[in-house]
């Protein structure tokens, strides 16, 4: 009798569930990106620790987000994952990686990537607005904007420069040094919308809502070994 051996191609992706709403799309899009990937939506420390790669998604406010992580005692588990394996933060999951956020009157975050999270100014205007549109920019920044890849990175593979991705956010990250900036867009001013630091990648936009380009980014993440040398590229 032959025992079936597990596929060596199969990888386990833990999508961290800290009670902040809809993770359905993230999980489905990851499965869609790689049908061999085993996707777990979980708040189980053991499962997160033993997964091959980890996704930290997020919607809602930063205070609730960090608060739930604390309540579920996930902070150390998340920090451990972010220090050791391919790790992808999305939207609030990106903002949570920073040192501090201005949202909810100020919230201390995970401090994995040094920097701040700030709010778009209320009277934001577009200095480059064509005559076809008014220049009064709405908040949240909602819809499809172009992402300028600032570095070469395995997660940008097969994604064209200035590709449009779907955004919905009122706060944005300002890293302490420009070094981790992997992508930027313009909304009234240049905005950092992707970060890369060693085995961590993070996006302000939603790959799970960005159609084919987002699926490509997820496929790249699932195929990524977690290495990235900022000076080598």
């Amino acid at each position, binding site marked *: 009798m032959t025992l079936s051996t597990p596929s060596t191609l199969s990888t386990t992706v833990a999508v961290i569930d800290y009670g902040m*709403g*809809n993770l*359905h*799309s993230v999980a*489905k*899009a990851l499965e*869609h990106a790689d049908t061999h990937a085993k996707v777990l939506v979980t708040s189980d420390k053991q499962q997160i620790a033993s997964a091959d790669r980890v996704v930290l998604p997020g*919607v*809602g*406010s930063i205070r609730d987000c960090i608060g739930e992580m604390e309540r579920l005692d996930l902070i150390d588990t998340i920090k451990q994952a972010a220090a050791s394996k391919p790790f992808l933060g999305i939207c609030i999951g990106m903002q949570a990686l920073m040192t501090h956020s201005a949202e909810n009157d100020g919230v201390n975050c995970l401090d994995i990537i040094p920097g701040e999270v700030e709010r778009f100014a*209320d009277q934001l205007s*577009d200095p*480059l*607005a*064509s*005559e*076809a*549109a*008014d220049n*009064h*920019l*709405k*908040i*949240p*920044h*909602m*819809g*499809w*904007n*172009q992402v*300028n890849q600032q570095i070469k990175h395995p997660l940008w593979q097969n994604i064209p420069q*200035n590709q*449009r991705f*779907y*955004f*919905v*956010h*009122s706060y944005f990250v300002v890293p302490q040094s420009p070094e981790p900036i992997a992508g930027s*867009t*313009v*909304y009234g001013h240049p905005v950092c919308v992707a970060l890369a630091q060693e085995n961590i990648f993070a996006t302000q936009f939603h790959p*799970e*809502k*960005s*159609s084919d380009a*987002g*699926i490509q980014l997820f496929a790249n993440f699932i195929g990524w070994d977690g290495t990235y040398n900022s000076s080598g590229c």
Partner: protein
Amino acid sequence: MALAKRIIPCLDVDKGRVVKGVQFVDIRDAGDPVEVARRYNSEGADELTFLDITATHEGRDTIVHVVEQVAGEIFIPLTVGGGIRTVEDVRMMLNAGADKVAINSAAVANPEFVREAAEKFGNQCIVVAIDAKQVAGKTDDQPPRWEIFTHGGRKPTGIDAIEWSKKMVSYGAGELLVTSMDNDGVKNGFDLPLTRTISDNVAVPVIASGGVGNLDHLAEGVIEGHADAVLAASIFHFAEYSIGEAKRHMADKGIEMRL
């Protein structure tokens, strides 16, 4: 580099089936929301909106399955409207895979519901639908005034549409879906003064709806109506125009589009 204006096709769903004739030659089952969603996605739709028009309570569960199915394979933002009345309704739709819910008459009946839903789930997933009719300034010399109507435009509420829009944003609406009940179904274009007055008075994005008959109307909604997104149903359902054509037309008018 700039944020693109959005085109949002709207699908009317009754007991889990798309109604109001979707005419695509290469679609086997035009009543299947997944097939129609797939088609619109491949044409470049920026988002999809499902409007549940199921009259019976029992039939309502089916919209949840529709959302689950579509969200399982179409990876663009999905909005669900129609019959969203409680926090539990919102939760159910978001858990099924919707990104936003559109709240209509329940907001008029109980504005606190909007606040409660926004606090629980975040402003970004709460769209308030504003159904308005012009009540002054049309045939008289009065300054233009619009009022909120419910029950498909039949029932006046006495609420000023501009004031109501501002109130809904202060209660936590992350986006407004503005429909002219005068123009809906007439195909003469959006009510541009209504759309523009609301858009210029709120900080959140505004979706123009009601009255699209041709591609120029879509472009006018953005250029003259200051809309951030345009929603249309019949011009896409009857395959009069594809979404790709609509986007190219708007881009030709100088509007930033995702092509």
